[in-house]
């Protein structure tokens, strides 16, 4: 008889099977993930969790009897039945206590299981990519990373490598035949034992001489010599820029309703999750504006109300200032998402366009504009609302080739498709168009 401990064996033996399963059920799972994410709030939008997919898509078929014919059941726990009794069929047609249907679990119509955070996100963000991600990825930043690189003879005490130092010391002591403390102690003990024994006087003299020479040698050859000391050496390695800042710009003037803000928030959330997947570090900057702009925290950004006119250029101006102060474009990947209902003061369009073209767009990796509107607004036949001021302004920029994207969103349902359209891999987008 043998007992083996298998607990330390590599776990995740069924991981390849799980991956095959997810690949197989990909379309179904993806739908489920999108449904699930629509119901979540910002904070937990990117955690993993349970999803359920329809069972029929992943069923493994087999031959089995359908309904009908004569079926026999032997059941335990008879209470009052006698032979020949007739019993009405239970409603729902599941004859004989419903044991037949439950045997293979076909009674369930949905298959539930848990996805990890990673799986959830990769399905959620599948076939999306960041535009121009490579542009700055390899640019060297000013902030180097330190990597271990062997040992050196000079350094700070905190980097002292004790193990390496003692190893050198030991080999030097052995090479130079420094007496071991135990040997010295043994000599001393022997001398102490022979002390006062006249017969051993001659031997005592010899021993004393040896002890003296040993002690002298111990003093000459130090325990640790400066040449033994080693320090751990670090080398600076230039670190590619792998951090991003995301600017959320939003019009908070009276014409923006809570619903519109909610739409904008959802869009920002998606973008944030998406950036987090690609960058180790993502900063968020919230800039709200009416006729004047200010940088605020998230809470204020989404929930406080302002009154005033609408000047989009003020927000862009504020963003330019923040970029100048804190986020040099050489070190940061800058993303901006602007949400607005499209209103802008009549005289501001020119200024907005200039600001965008001259300063903002060159600094940004990507600039997305979403125009939010009330649900059903566009559904009024006979009263088509023309494009808004801001939309017209931006449209001109885009047609002139500016690297920005713009979309209209009216309803929560549209957020995800719009987001996907904005970030879809080029090939896929073109396929969809063609």
């Amino acid at each position, binding site marked *: 008889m*043998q007992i083996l401990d298998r607990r330390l064996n590599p776990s995740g033996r069924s991981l390849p099977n799980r991956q095959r399963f997810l690949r197989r059920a990909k379309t179904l799972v993806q739908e489920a993930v999108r449904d699930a994410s629509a119901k979540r709030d910002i904070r937990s939008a990117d955690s993993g969790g349970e999803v359920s997919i329809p069972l029929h898509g992943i069923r493994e078929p087999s031959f089995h009897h359908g309904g009908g014919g004569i079926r026999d*059941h032997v059941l335990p726990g008879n209470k009052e039945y006698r032979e020949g009794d007739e019993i009405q069929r239970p409603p729902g047609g599941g004859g004989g206590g419903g044991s037949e249907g439950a045997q293979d679990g076909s009674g369930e119509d949905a298959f539930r*299981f848990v996805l990890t955070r990673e799986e959830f996100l990769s399905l959620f963000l599948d076939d999306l990519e960041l535009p121009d991600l490579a542009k700055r990825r390899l640019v060297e930043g000013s902030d180097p990373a330190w990597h271990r690189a062997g040992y050196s003879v000079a350094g700070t005490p905190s980097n002292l490598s004790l193990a390496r130092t003692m190893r050198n010391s030991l080999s030097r002591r052995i090479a130079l035949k420094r007496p071991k403390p135990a040997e010295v102690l043994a000599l001393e003990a022997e001398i102490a034992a022979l002390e006062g024994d006249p017969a051993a006087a001659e031997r005592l003299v010899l021993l004393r001489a040896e002890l003296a020479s040993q002690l002298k040698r111990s003093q000459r050859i130090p325990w640790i010599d400066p040449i033994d000391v080693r320090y751990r050496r670090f080398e600076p390695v230039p670190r590619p820029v792998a951090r991003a800042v995301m600017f959320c710009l939003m019009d908070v003037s009276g014409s923006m309703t809570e619903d519109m803000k909610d739409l904008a928030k959802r869009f920002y959330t998606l973008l944030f999750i998406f950036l987090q997947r690609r960058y180790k570090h993502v900063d968020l900057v919230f800039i709200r504006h009416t006729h004047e702009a200010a940088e605020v925290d998230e809470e204020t950004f989404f929930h406080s109300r302002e009154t005033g006119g609408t000047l989009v250029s003020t927000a862009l101006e504020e963003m330019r200032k923040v970029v100048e102060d804190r986020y040099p474009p050489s070190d940061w990947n800058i993303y901006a998402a602007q949400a607005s209902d499209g209103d802008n003061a009549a005289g501001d369009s020119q200024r907005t366009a200039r600001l965008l073209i001259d300063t903002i767009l060159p600094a940004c990796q990507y600039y997305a504009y979403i125009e939010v509107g009330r649900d059903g607004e566009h559904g009024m036949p006979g009263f088509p609302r023309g494009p808004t001021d801001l939309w017209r302004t931006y449209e001109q920029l885009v047609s002139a080739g500016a690297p920005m994207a713009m979309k209209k969103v009216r309803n929560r349902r549209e957020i995800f498709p719009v987001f996907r359209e904005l970030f879809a891999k080029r090939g896929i987008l073109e396929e969809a168009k063609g």
Partner: protein
Amino acid sequence: MNAPVTPDELLYQGADWDFATLMKIHDACEVVAHRDLGLDVYPNRIEIISAEQMLDAYASTGLPLFYRHWSFGKQFAHHEALYRKGLRGLAYEIVINSDPCLSYVMEENTATLQALVIAHAAFGHNHFFKNNRLFKEWTDARGILDYLEFAKGYVADCEERYGEEAVERVLDSAHALMNYGVHRHHRRTIDLRSEEKRVRERRAHDEQMFNVLWSTLPEKASTQAIAGDVEKRRALLQLPQENILYFLEKSAPKLTSWQREILRIVRNMAQYFHPQRQTKMMNEGCATYVHHRILNTLHREGRLTDGALLEALHSHTSVIMQPDFDDPRYSGINPYALGFAMMEDIERICRDPTEEDREWFPDFAGSGDPMPTLRHGWAEFRDESFILQFLSPHLMRKLKLFHLRDDEKQPALRVDAMHDERGYRRLRRALAKQYDPAWTDPDIQVTDVDLAGDRRLILEHRVHSGRLLEEQEARQVLRHLASLWGYDVLLREMDPATGASLKEHAVSPPR
């Protein structure tokens, strides 16, 4: 208990255990198993695993290593979700029919549970695997682990060569037909260990055979001769054939050799599991009876504390719980409950028979020691025949069994037999039938191939009691079958009494 128990005599105290404890428990169980029960077991190998590894093992039908397929991932995801939510606990153990006999036990188990598991799996199941006729004839306990290794490697190799999707398609199709990958009636010796060596020989032989059959080159005369003569054709193709996977492996014209080999792997696995399907109730009954006897004996001898026995009994009783048919928890007859009840009942009949028992079981009623009878039963029977032979009126009354007949043509269900003098035998026959795969699985066979025409494969479902196939899934399975066969497939559902065709399903291969 007469003498006060000293801690030395106890196998363990409290819930903690280490390897030495397990060893002690195993040795103590072994003594009881040999001395009192006369069991004959394979050498044991006990492996300690974590909960996650247990889930892994669940996913691959309990085997320690298995080829890769998405359906196992689905299983895993399903079990994991249930386990995480706390809806379902994990099994305490999994035991593999191999030599040495592998038992996986969970690290979370208490010392008492480990004792229970060792007695249950390492002796109960182990004895059953080694002695039952079905396992002896149909499975190769010595070769299974090596064969699993080979199968896993072979499938992985194919995936690398031909792509995961191509392999997946074949496996999907083969899995759909897995229940029809078994030789039910005539025995073949199985030697899994030489499988690998035989792969090549088989290929050569098959290819020769195919040249004759499917050659489109000028050998017209002979092909037509074969096509014309039904008897000759059937003999050549070994028709009718109940083992559909076997037939496809040998005769499907369009499969390449690696696809045939994968069919063979699935078929061998189906064959390996076939005895387990047929003996589930007895196997669990045997193991439950054995652990019950062993633990009680150990307690009587002062090797287990009263607390430990109570803990074991608590697990024992929840395992053999049988809800009544009208209980919301009812989901069929619990194999542990029926199995254990039958074993205990046999013990009762041997030790303390009533007049009725003597009349029903003259062979062994009042024989004293139940073990010879039980060991004989465990060795020679399967669930169906075991029930036919050993289910006593006493037990039928105790379980209050009754037989309900659901005839589509009648307006109401009818109680056909119950636990009384008139009903015992009919009730017992009806229950036995429920454990017979030949009755519960639809009876489907390959009957003919249209060699002269479009190479259509013809299957027949012999319909019993008017139970037709569930159409939607049947068509799905037929699509899988057609994709393996390469040409059209026709399934005819016919009444064996009159030969009349009741329903037909025709499917073309997906292209």
